[in-house]
């Protein structure tokens, strides 16, 4: 059973994956119902679920979820529109890489959350500021990862294309891009996950809507149930978007899977 790299069946994979969620819930229940942790610090799962239903039914939480999703997707798409072409240029053309790579590597380490005070100063507390936080958090990561994917195109494929009469532009368009496309999609999937952490941070500060704002409000009321429900919500949305991305990648790039 524990032979290295031995594959598991599809059924077993689903059962094992679900089992951990069950285990997690069981540990949570044990800690709360068993009285190991005071209710003020951690509410039990049943209460959390009930308060979650209330949030949707009475407090219009779906609007907060919608606002947060739109911010993540909006900021992320803006970042992708700028970063993917730049990354492709950097990966394909070495002078462009030499020009941009040092700065992008430096900018990549600037924490997006540290920009929030500045961005509030520059862009106020509206939507533009939220989108900018996500944009700054994502754009440099995408540029660098796309550049690496494109730059690692197999040399022998490029040479084969040359001997078949391809020109420089054709090499980029017909060899480097299609070859790197699945990895680029995978990069976007990863960075979208990180964008979720930036949006919540952005919403914790100077915001009047969104999941992060709800969590912040709940803290003032000491309602750990609502806070945990908000966090779980993000997890669920993340899981769903991840599955959609994976499914789309496998449909778009059947040759790579």
């Amino acid at each position, binding site marked *: 059973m524990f032979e290295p790299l031995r594959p598991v069946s599809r059924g077993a994979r689903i059962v094992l994956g679900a089992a951990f969620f069950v285990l997690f819930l069981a540990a949570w229940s044990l800690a709360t119902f068993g009285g190991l942790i005071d209710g003020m610090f951690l509410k039990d799962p049943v209460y959390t679920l009930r308060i979650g239903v209330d949030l949707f039914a009475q407090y219009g939480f779906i609007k907060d979820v919608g606002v947060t999703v739109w911010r993540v997707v909006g900021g992320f798409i803006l970042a992708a529109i700028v970063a993917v072409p730049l990354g492709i240029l950097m990966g394909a053309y070495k002078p462009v890489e030499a020009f941009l790579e040092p700065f992008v590597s430096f900018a990549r380490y600037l924490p997006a959350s540290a920009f929030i005070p500045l961005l509030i100063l520059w862009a106020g507390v509206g939507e533009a500021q939220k989108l900018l936080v996500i944009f700054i958090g994502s754009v440099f990561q995408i540029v660098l990862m796309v550049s690496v994917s494109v730059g690692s195109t197999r040399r022998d494929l490029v040479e*084969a294309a*040359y*001997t*078949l*009469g*391809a020109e420089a532009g054709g090499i980029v368009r017909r*060899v480097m891009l299609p070859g790197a496309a699945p990895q680029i999609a995978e990069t976007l999937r990863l960075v979208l996950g990180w964008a979720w952490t930036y949006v919540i941070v952005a919403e914790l500060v100077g915001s009047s809507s969104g999941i992060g704002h709800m969590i912040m409000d709940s803290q003032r009321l000491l309602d750990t149930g609502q806070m945990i429900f908000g966090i779980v919500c993000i997890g669920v949305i993340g899981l769903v978007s991840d599955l959609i991305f994976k499914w789309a990648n496998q449909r778009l790039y059947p040759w790579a899977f």
Partner: protein
Amino acid sequence: MGFLSVEAVSKEFPGVRGGAPTRALETTDLRVEDNDFITILGPSGCGKSTLLRIVAGLEAPSTGRVQLDGAPVARPGPDRGMVFQSYTLFPWLTVRDNIRFGARATDARADELIGKVGLRGFENHYPKMLSGGMQQRTALARALANDPKILLLDEPFGALDNQTRALMQELLLGIWEADRKTVLFVTHDIDEAIFMANRVAVMSARPGRIKATLEIDLPHPRHYKMKTTPEFSRYKAEITEQIRVESIRAVAMGAA
């Protein structure tokens, strides 16, 4: 002056981190006539692949020049089709789209070649679904579909098992006998070099140069049974002797 002429070509790779430069190919001359089939035979590391890559335009020679059909070779181009030892099909394209990749490939020609290399029924498969032999047959069809003036083959069957390799040799020979394309074929396999060629160019150990060329006067069409005839064995004995000296030199120099 031949169809392909390699004149005083040598190659030296610059040293890494200030080290001494590596001499990969000694000054070499080679003439190939139109419709000829030449094999270049040599021990590993002798520079035979470097020579082929220079003809392809993938490496620039340190000295000398290469001319094909009167025009100087400076960079890779569709007039020199190449099949590599490694599998170089584009993984995101189907067999048919791979064969159609070349700028001069047409649907009709691609279709004809799919039949010739025995890939009928696999046109819509992706490369990862194919065996090594099928991938190299696709690569051969892809190079031919672009209608090159010369076909450059860099140990194309080197990664295949013996049985598949023998079948591929016959397939390539059959296509050559029908089309009479000019072919330059690099190999380290003596049997393969004799069986395929009109002329075998034997290379010396690193840094290599062509030390002898041998006409192979065996009739066409050739059949695999030819490999057991006395004439074949005579050629083999002669070339084995030449290549043995070089292999021993190569091992002594630590190149093999």
